């Protein structure tokens, strides 16, 4: 343990293959959908196992930060903050297979110690346990059979995002929704 940094960790087993976790963790454009306290997310650049991404924080923190990311396919995703005033300096996700259809995920968050008691506000930001829980929820959108297994009754409405657009099932009738921008720019 360093005087100037502190590391918080969390781990869990999720019911999905490492490939899905890797895809979610490297899909920087869509962190906004699931990552706690992130209000904007955008991949700036990507080349091989390297990427740059920019995140915008939700209130009360606000502000943006840029991370530099190094990936090892289906095994590790590591970020380092290179721009922005956030106390977190490094985030490391490690993924390992944990039996059939399951993966062990470990998250380690290294932050700079803040010695100013009046400059807090980031205390709950990037809490490893909350991030893992959010990741689990995001996983379940790709594997809804896990989350929906106990619900019995008449299916009224289903929305599924696919390559061809959003498929909407209303009481068994199928509709395909296309992105508005795609249609307007034809």
């Amino acid at each position, binding site marked *: 343990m360093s005087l100037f940094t502190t590391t918080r960790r969390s781990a869990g087993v999720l019911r999905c293959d490492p490939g899905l976790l890797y895809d979610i963790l490297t899909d920087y454009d869509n962190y906004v*959908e699931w990552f706690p306290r992130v209000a904007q997310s955008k991949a700036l*650049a990507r080349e091989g196992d390297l990427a*740059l991404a*920019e995140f915008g924080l939700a209130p009360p923190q606000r502000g943006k930060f840029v991370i530099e990311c190094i990936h090892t396919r289906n095994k590790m995703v590591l970020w380092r903050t290179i721009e922005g005033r956030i106390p977190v300096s490094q985030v490391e996700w490690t993924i390992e297979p944990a039996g059939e259809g399951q993966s062990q995920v470990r998250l380690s968050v290294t932050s700079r110690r803040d010695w100013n008691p009046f400059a807090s506000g980031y205390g709950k930001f990037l809490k490893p346990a909350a991030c893992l829980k959010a990741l689990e929820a995001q996983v379940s959108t790709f594997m*809804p059979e896990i989350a929906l297994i106990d*619900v019995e*009754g008449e299916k009224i409405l289903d929305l*599924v995002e696919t390559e061809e657009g959003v498929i909407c099932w209303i009481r068994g009738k199928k509709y395909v929704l296309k992105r508005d921008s795609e249609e307007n720019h034809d």
Partner: protein
Amino acid sequence: MIKAVINVTAPRQQVFAVLSDYPSYTDWVPGCEQCRVTSRSGQSADTQIVINGMRRIELAVRFEAHPTQALSFRMVQGRDLKAYSGTYRLMDSADGKGTVVIAELEIEVGMMVPRFMVDRIARRMIDETGAALRKYVATARMPTGVSAQETRRAAPPETKRRRVRKILRVTKTDGGYSVWLMGETFLVKNSGA
């Protein structure tokens, strides 16, 4: 080490050509009064630079180029600074509209100036250089060696296949409705139930 990310709306070849055109630094690098190439060897170039910012600084800087990928530099001689080094790394922007430059700068001036003050100066230098690079690339004509075809060619955005995923399910149950929305389940009870 101070880092910054600079978004430039020009292809990587063009940005690299500007960064590696050392004699033209006087046209755009803030405070650069002179940048004279004293020798070249392969992708390496030795230069004599004069920067007139908060004070006048003279230094000999060696540049090592990795064409279109990166450009590193370090002071090899100079009395005004203890160390001066850095890197520009170039990547195609994910939206296919230009180049992302990751700039790194390390300055050491000796024991007399506190680290935080040096870092603040380095931060200002790197930010000002980034803004100047963006402006110069947008207005400058191409340095020799960069063809018009190369400058027009921007990397297409990486198309990524998205997995199929469920967004919403509403199920009518005995007691009301179960709403599953992107991993979270909400129960809506019948008012009469």
